[in-house]
């Protein structure tokens, strides 16, 4: 039995930047063959922005691109070239899944809408993932991760009460969307396996993030309350915050929920008397006096390195963690144990450290292989997927069809 869960699944990606590429990279890690269609003339934004391996500005060395595209084949094709459609039709008839992340209407104008696809491959599964979805008054409005993150409502609940909305992880929605996209695609594959039926999935990026916001939506509807921003505090635990530790910009996150955890914390801070103080005796008291509590805890953490605070509190049964930086992640013993980051050599360009998959399957583990150079697989795809003869390939090459 093949140990790649998605072995034999063929995917074509018409995708840009982060959300789409990350979607198909998950499929590739679990064994799907993914051909990403790119353009030489209109380079993917992520191939341009770096940082670059060896600090050499080159589309094959941009970390943004490498990060989001492991395990795929890259085929460059000028979709407006007169013979491009012939090539594309053959690739579509090879494919089980097509992923597109262009704004609504773009694929249709190229003659590559779902209705065109089913004529080539009736059981195709096509997932279109743009900001607003492919119907409604906003359909087709161009957008990208930053506006989409604002649209999702997440910044509204990120930050301290007296702070402007904070932008979460730059454009966090780009990293949320791939998860539900992959769920929908693989579920559709399973359904097709049983019924023979493909389908079109209109995966609006706006709509797929809203379910995550449901608690604040219900709170407004039911209680008339807008939850707004509460910083790092919790509504059911205190102390619950990030605390400055010894050193330059070093921090620890601490979450105390139960009385037992609170008593343990007081003991660790060598301040057992604190545990019996009435103003902190119960959760509701601690919540009421949490700013004062934060000052007391921070006075203690500031005298210790963050790693020491973490180890000590975890050993005492309290949830605590260093606010890890890129350097910390590289040295994290658990992530090392999990083999989460994997260094892969790019011939002639250097080593890139790829992150793994957050979902691990025991019998069919994922594999990470390097991201492709621009157009690296043009010839391979033309010969093996499209079935062009050498002459036909060279002729198209001469006509600049692969630009």
């Amino acid at each position, binding site marked *: 039995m093949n140990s790649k869960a*998605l072995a034999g699944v063929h995917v074509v990606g018409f995708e840009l930047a982060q959300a789409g590429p990350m979607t198909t990279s998950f499929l590739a890690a*679990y064994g799907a063959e993914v051909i990403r269609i790119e353009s030489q003339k209109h380079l993917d934004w992520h191939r341009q922005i770096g940082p670059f391996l060896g600090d050499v500005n080159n589309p094959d060395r941009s*970390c943004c691109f490498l990060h989001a595209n492991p395990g795929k084949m890259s085929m460059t094709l000028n979709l407006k070239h007169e013979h491009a459609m012939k090539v594309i039709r053959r690739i579509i008839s090879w494919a089980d899944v097509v992923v597109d992340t262009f704004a609504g209407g773009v694929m249709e104008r190229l003659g590559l809408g779902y209705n065109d696809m089913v004529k080539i491959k009736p059981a195709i599964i096509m997932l279109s993932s743009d900001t607003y*979805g492919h119907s*409604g008054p*906003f359909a087709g*409005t*161009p957008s990208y991760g*930053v*506006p*989409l993150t*604002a649209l999702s*409502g997440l910044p*509204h609940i990120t930050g301290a009460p007296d702070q402007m*909305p*904070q932008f979460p*992880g730059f454009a*966090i929605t780009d*990293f*949320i969307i791939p998860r*539900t996209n992959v769920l*929908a695609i693989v*579920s559709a594959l*399973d*359904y097709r396996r*049983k019924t023979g039926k493909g*389908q079109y*999935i*209109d995966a609006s990026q706006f709509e797929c993030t809203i379910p*995550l916001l449901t608690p604040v*939506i219900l709170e407004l*509807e039911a209680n008339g309350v807008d939850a707004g921003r509460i*910083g*790092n505090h919790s*509504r059911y635990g205190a102390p*619950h*915050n*990030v605390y400055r530790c010894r050193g330059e910009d070093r*921090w620890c*996150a601490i*979450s105390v*929920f139960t009385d037992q955890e609170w008593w343990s914390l007081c003991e660790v801070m060598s301040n057992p008397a604190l545990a019996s103080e009435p103003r902190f005796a119960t959760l509701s008291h601690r919540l009421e006096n949490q700013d004062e509590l934060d000052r007391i805890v921070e006075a203690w953490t500031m005298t210790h390195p963050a790693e020491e605070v973490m180890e000590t509190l975890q050993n005492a049964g*309290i*949830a605590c963690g260093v*606010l*890890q*930086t*890129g*350097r910390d992640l590289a040295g994290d013993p*658990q*992530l090392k144990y*999990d083999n989460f980051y994997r260094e892969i050599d790019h011939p002639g360009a250097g080593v*890139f*450290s*790829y992150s*793994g*998959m*957050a979902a*691990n*399957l025991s019998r069919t583990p994922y594999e990470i292989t390097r991201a492709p150079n621009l157009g690296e697989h043009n010839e391979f795809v033309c010969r093996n997927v499209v079935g062009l003869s050498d002459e036909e390939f060279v002729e198209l090459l001469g006509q600049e069809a692969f630009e």
Partner: protein
Amino acid sequence: MVWERGGAMLGSYRVLDLTDDQGLYCGQLLGYLGADVIKVEHPGGDKSRLIPPFLHGVLGVDNSLYWRSFNTNKRGITLNLDTAQGRNIFRELVRKADIVVESFPPGYMAQLGLDYNALNEVNGKVILTSISPFGQTGPHSKWKGSDLVCWAMGGLLAQTGDPDRPPVRISHINFAYQMAGADAAWGTAVALYWRGISGRGQHVTVSIQQSIAKTNFMAHEVFETTGKEQKRASSFYRVERSEVMLRSVWEAKDGYVAFLIFGGQWGATHDNPRLVEWINEEGMADDYLRGIDWAKLSWRRTPLDEVAKIHGYVERFFKSKTKAELLEGAIKRRIAIQPVNTPSDILEHPQLQARDYWQEMALADAMLVKFPSRFCLPSYSLCRQWMPAPRVGEHNAEVYEELLGISPEKLNRLKEASII
């Protein structure tokens, strides 16, 4: 009850959901696609039923709006796994299930005699999906992780917030847990697909730390490549290899909007000329702004005072307009300005209304609310809310009768013995 979800992608599968707040979203997502998800709770109810906010602010196991947000699409039963008889009943349920999802501390399922190997003996096709803060094995696997701690350890907390203030976590509604739940859901779907081909189940594991590390915009990768650490500046976009920071969140008259002023060819061919034209029409531009050659503008090489000057025009313009006015103009002129939506903006969003996104659901007697109906819109199958979150033990009689043929009398005896 006959399960009428044949047309849904996962309509033929049954899930036993043992999770607490760290894994609730997984079962819900599978349920959106039609899986028969049975939430198995300890008698008295799952502890995450006590997470605020509460309906009308009243504490109660059926009142948590948080719990009710992430448990729709599930039937609810109670079962005491701390008793031998309870565990036997659970094994019987596993025979009738395709998937078990759990988020207990690692090792707890083994203590119960219900780890993957044990479940595999009962049902070789079953998929066990386990969610925990730091994985199932390894040096930190026994550590406790809250949502806040998982953000920290995954590297995203250090990246979010103003440089001169403490870092801030992304939302306060356990978003890290939901990210892990989504990872667990797609991982489970991949395992299901392979099971369809191989006939074998397997163990799917998700570490919440890894879910966040995977959400991180390359803190690790940038460090490994450049030897430099990214510092938090989350309302700004840092221009590489320079001191220039481009604002991403701006004040409008009645709230905030997001917008980036791109330089170079991108800015010249997209937003910038359209925005300048709009500012000009409102009489807020001058020769300097009108004269900028965006294609030639490289932020990296622009002096900081000039960066501030250019930002100033946009800042004054945005402050003079409401979010709604800015959005209307942005759509009309095809400029990527986007209001930072509040929950009420989302509820009233015309696009969602036009796409019939909201599904009515009863939260209490005579209280209908709008609930998100889907995470995607398949043309053929359905992705929807099939049922509201269950009350404690709401489907005991129905599920135990249907799956195990337990009669009402026997059910009563089990209840009296505190097993159900």
